[in-house]
């Protein structure tokens, strides 16, 4: 819904929240009726101040992201007690995610100029351990992700400018306490900081921390700032549940450089350090290029002759080079068609794309013709970075080594496609790839990638079971589970972890194994990786004395390609209900290995 896209009108959202919510719920109901699976997430909002409006507006943004939240809201300022003393209502609620809304108002002691360095250090330890105790207890009890606010700067400076550097200063104390939070975030998985220090400074601390709202309503921030706050928080949550975008589709003229390359000539477009407009576009290109390291794919969608487009990108002072783009569509076809083609070639959904174009007419066409694609309002080049950055399309909650090399992997795929064309026999082609796989139980270094895959894979995914990293760690540690990750490399490069399978041994019938999750990244389709995985799973089941494997297929709007997956692997259909949810079984004793082209664990 465009009202909920950055930059939004916060006052409008606050005022019209009820009717907006109604509209969003109707839309979600429609999606559900058409077979789209909507995520429902239980969110515990544990406040150190009032949270009512925060919860209301957060709900709007989450609904807009296709996440249906259920809320538990602590009684006023009971965040710590609810966790430490096992509030029964919260226990029963069983949160999927815990959000702790504390602020500088919740710091219970501050240094004064009378305090010694030692006593201030002790005070800092004390304030920190109040939180740390609570986080440990929450992780232990609920085994779910925690989102924790850091602290905004105090709204007054008793020592003036000295307040920031002198350890007696409140500003200094808050910075040090924040630093302790960050150190914790660095060592603790599933722990996320909601950076209200940054939010408050963007918004303007004086307005953000207006004492009126604290003394009047016990709000730690002004009510007007709540939409921005809630949006920032919603971005963390949607990112945890795999709803980040994956690719940026770029227009060229007046988007990546100033001027029109076809008319002005590559030598006359504005890019590089010569003019201020050129510098502006260079900064933007640098910003876009840095996304490659985050695993975001870049592509071009431009109305241009390809020759001219490439000439622009090939300028020595262009930061982005033709090589930085996985797909370049520079032609005179409608942009929406190019965009849909691009999504197909990358094997990702239209809803994983962000389309950037300075031309409002092109934006409108894409918005109207392609459902789900994000089309930010890129109207003034000096605002491009700001709009993209604050939109939070790529909020980095998980970061794996895979992200660093994702662009290379997609490039290698293009190479493979070329090679495939030169082989008459597909089996020969597969052999020529010299594939090597590592198929092993979930290992600590891959936990974040595995969780990421369960949230991102839609097409080759039998049950579409979404897992947090905490879920993944739990099943990996449980002796009744068999877990396998599959990593595939070939002569063109390493694809990283591309397949995840886990399931559990039946509680009463020990010879029966249930496959809870089976997924594979579409970047390794038709490489026989799924056979290698099934071979390994069968072998592991056999060694545990299991005689029968039961697989499940739950249809969604995106996973039709694996409807007959289990038939292909020699399973027989046991049942299928009216919605297409099917149960399949096969015996293990007559299982024969099917993979002939991938070397496994050598």
């Amino acid at each position, binding site marked *: 819904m465009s009202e909920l896209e950055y930059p939004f009108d916060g*006052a409008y959202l*606050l*005022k019209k*929240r*009820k009717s907006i919510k109604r509209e969003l719920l109707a839309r979600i109901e429609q999606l559900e009726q058409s077979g789209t699976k909507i995520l429902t997430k239980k969110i515990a909002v544990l406040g150190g101040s009032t949270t*009512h*409006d925060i919860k209301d507006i957060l709900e709007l943004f989450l609904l807009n992201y296709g996440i249906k939240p259920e809320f538990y809201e602590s009684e006023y300022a009971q965040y710590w007690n609810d966790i430490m003393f096992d509030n029964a209502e919260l226990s029963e609620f069983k949160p999927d995610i815990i959000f702790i809304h504390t602020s500088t108002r919740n710091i219970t002691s501050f240094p004064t100029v009378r305090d010694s360095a030692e006593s201030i250090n002790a005070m800092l330890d004390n304030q920190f351990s109040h939180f740390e105790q609570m986080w440990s207890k929450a992780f232990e009890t609920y085994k779910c992700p925690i989102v924790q606010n850091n602290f905004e700067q105090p709204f007054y400076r008793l020592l003036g400018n000295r307040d920031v550097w002198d350890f007696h200063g409140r500003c200094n104390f808050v910075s040090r306490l924040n630093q302790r939070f960050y150190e914790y975030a660095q060592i603790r998985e599933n722990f996320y900081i909601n950076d209200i220090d940054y939010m408050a400074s963007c918004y303007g601390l004086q307005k953000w921390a207006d004492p009126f709202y604290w*003394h*009047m309503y016990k709000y730690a921030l002004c*009510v007007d700032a709540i939409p921005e706050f809630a949006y920032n928080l919603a971005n963390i949550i949607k990112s945890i549940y795999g709803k980040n975008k994956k690719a940026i589709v770029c227009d060229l003229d007046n988007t990546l450089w100033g001027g029109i390359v076809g008319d002005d000539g590559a030598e006359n477009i504005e890019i590089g350090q010569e003019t201020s407009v050129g510098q502006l576009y260079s900064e933007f290109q640098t910003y876009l290029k840095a996304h490659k390291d985050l695993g975001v794919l870049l592509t071009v969608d431009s109305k241009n002759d390809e020759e001219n487009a490439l000439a622009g990108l090939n300028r020595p002072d262009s930061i982005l080079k033709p090589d930085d783009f996985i797909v370049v569509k520079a032609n005179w076809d409608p942009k929406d068609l190019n965009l849909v083609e691009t999504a197909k070639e990358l094997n990702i959904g239209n809803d994983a794309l962000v389309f950037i174009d300075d031309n409002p007419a092109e934006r409108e066409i894409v918005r109207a013709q392609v459902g789900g694609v994000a089309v930010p309002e890129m109207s003034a080049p000096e605002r491009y970075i700001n709009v993209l950055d604050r939109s939070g399309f790529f909020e980095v909650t998980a970061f794996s080594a895979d992200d660093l090399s994702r662009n290379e992997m997609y490039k290698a795929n293009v190479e493979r496609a070329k090679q495939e064309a030169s082989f008459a026999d597909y089996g020969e082609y597969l052999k020529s790839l010299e594939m090597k796989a590592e198929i092993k139980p979930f290992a600590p270094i891959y936990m974040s990638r595995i969780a990421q895959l369960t949230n991102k894979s839609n097409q080759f995914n039998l049950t579409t079971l979404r897992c947090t990293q905490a879920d993944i760690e739990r099943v990996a540690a449980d002796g009744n589970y068999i877990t396998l990750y599959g990593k595939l490399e070939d002569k063109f490069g390493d694809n990283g972890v591309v397949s995840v399978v886990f399931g559990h041994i039946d509680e009463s019938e020990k010879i029966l194994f249930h496959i809870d999750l089976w997924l594979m990244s579409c970047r390794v389709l038709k490489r026989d990786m799924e056979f290698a995985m099934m071979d390994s799973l069968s072998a592991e089941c056999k060694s545990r004395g299991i005689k029968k494997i039961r697989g499940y297929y739950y249809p969604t709007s995106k996973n039709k390609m694996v409807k007959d997956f289990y038939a292909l692997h020699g399973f027989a259909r046991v049942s299928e209900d009216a919605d297409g949810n099917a149960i399949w079984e096969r015996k293990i004793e007559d299982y024969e290995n099917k993979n002939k082209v991938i070397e496994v664990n050598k």
Partner: protein
Amino acid sequence: MTREEVFEKLNEVFRDVFDDEDIKVAESTNADDIEDWDSLSHINLVVAVEKEFGIKFSMGETQKMKNVGEMVDIILERTK
């Protein structure tokens, strides 16, 4: 702005905030007359009214207002 015009605008704000097209506020309307008007929605209401008229109520004013009529008094005073 006349008192009537203020009421007209207030009606719109109340309808948006409480998502009820039938609301019509009068001088004596207070929290007892509108079902969803509790201390929590009151905050949203006050913020929406402030935005509508481009004013900010002080803490004292916010606490003193007993009904819509008194709210209108303050709005008229401030927008003079």
